[in-house]
């Protein structure tokens, strides 16, 4: 009799515990694309997307863990279930949408800009341009007639310009602006910004409709009460985005 009571309480207790415990979600990011996402000096994922992601998780009542993954294999590892979302400055494109699903955007379409060594005034349409593999910038250059050199990480694309391997690098403006500011005049923006990409959304498995709905609702509520705009202003030098 005592044993049964004990067991019933135990079962009840565990049942209650799991009911009150939030659903565990693993958030996959690259961790190499400041200010969107990067690994800070304490070795933790940090950046705009960390702040947005944590807030989304709070509102959607999810228990989120952050994991980093190489950009190259970030989509394959999502679909094979190593983590549940991609939150890595990933622009919403039709090609990607065929493989995975996207939430609504949490960052508006941002122009991509060219950066070259200061004083460069060559014709970018015939130049050698560096971009990160499998990005919207890489496919843009490939179709623009310029020579594309691809690198696995954002860091290497900038290094290629510094050592003369490429004439310029094409990447999101917000990433490059920090690099240019920190280069003491060595690097400078060049050419015209190009408008590519459809805003940044969170990548989710196509079979995971329920999670997508939760995330969408959280993002919508963050847009409605201005939290998201405030976060964008903090991380992107006071940029004003109206949702």
């Amino acid at each position, binding site marked *: 009799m005592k044993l049964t009571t004990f067991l019933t309480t135990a079962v009840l207790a565990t049942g209650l515990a799991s009911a009150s415990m939030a659903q565990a979600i693993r958030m996959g990011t690259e961790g*190499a694309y400041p200010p969107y996402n990067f690994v800070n000096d304490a070795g933790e994922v940090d950046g705009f997307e960390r702040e947005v992601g944590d807030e989304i998780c709070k509102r959607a009542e999810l228990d989120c863990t952050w994991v980093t993954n*190489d950009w190259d294999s970030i989509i394959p590892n999502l679909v094979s*279930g190593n983590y549940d979302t991609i939150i890595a400055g990933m622009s919403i494109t039709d090609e990607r949408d065929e493989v995975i699903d996207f939430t609504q955007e949490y960052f508006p379409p941002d122009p991509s800009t060219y950066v070259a060594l200061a004083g460069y005034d060559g014709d970018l349409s015939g130049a050698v341009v560096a971009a990160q593999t499998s990005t919207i910038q890489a496919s843009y250059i490939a179709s623009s007639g310029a020579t594309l050199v691809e690198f696995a990480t954002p860091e290497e694309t900038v290094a290629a310009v510094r050592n003369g391997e490429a004439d310029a690098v094409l990447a999101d403006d917000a990433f490059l602006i920090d690099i240019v500011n920190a280069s003491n005049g060595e690097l400078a923006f060049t050419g015209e910004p190009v408008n590519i990409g459809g805003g940044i959304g969170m990548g989710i498995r196509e079979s995971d409709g329920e999670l997508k709905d939760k995330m969408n609702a959280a993002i919508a509520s963050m847009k409605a009460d201005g939290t998201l705009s405030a976060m964008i202003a903090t991380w992107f030098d006071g940029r004003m985005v109206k949702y």
Partner: protein
Amino acid sequence: MFSQCAEPSLLDGLNWWSCYLTTGKHINFYQSFLVVFALLLLTVPFILAFGFAGALARRSALFPIRWFGLAYTSMVRGIPDIIFFLFVPIAMDQGIEYLRHKWKCGDWSEPVRQGNDFVVCTAAKMPLGISPQWVHETYGFLLATLAFAIVFGAFAANTIHGALGAVPRAQLETAAAFGMSRGQIFRRIHLPQMWVYALPGLSNLWMILIKATPLLFLLGVEDIVYWARELGGTKTGRFAYPHPDWRLGYFLVLLVFYLALTWVSERFFAALMRRTSKGQTTIGGTV
């Protein structure tokens, strides 16, 4: 770590360095050296086990076992390592999850493969989604270890197979003449004399294994190469310790580390070779 590190932008000289080199990220970097050692120490027994199993399978009197041993060694040796390293962990992971799915969620009606997605029920996830991050990392590390063991085991199998065949037949015949059983001959005569022929090949393999550890990084394990690249990259004003591209310096540290490791190994194998050569009827043994 130190109290003066609270405000990194005010530091300079030695203070800056002492704070910079003890950031959480650097501690992760130092710990990742242990990951490399752990991989080396963990895989070696498995490599030898796979190697012996493969070599003995190839010498088996039974046709299917012999065929299996041959298939294992020639397949793994013929396929580029990197493909194997990418294939084995993913295939193992999905295989394990599939079996757990069948076992734990038999009544699931939805297919496991939905378009691109590999979907198993939450209870079949390996490790479980709610497990802490270190469990995920350990699991990934063990899968990587297994991939290393399978690949290097095949090379070891070939080396050991060759070494077993290099022991002079007269030694084994003499043992048989003394009335030893097959098992006794193998344990007392064949195996001890095999080592001197296998060691050069195995030491080569060990050196290649040391140099192959950066492949861990490809498998998503945060090893020394990952952290060196991460730490060396340009740090803009967003970081507490901004610095330009220092990857060259970090990679130089790795270079010295790997050179030191291979140098120590070289000495170790030279000593081991002298020991196993003693009394052997080889040139090394008679000197």
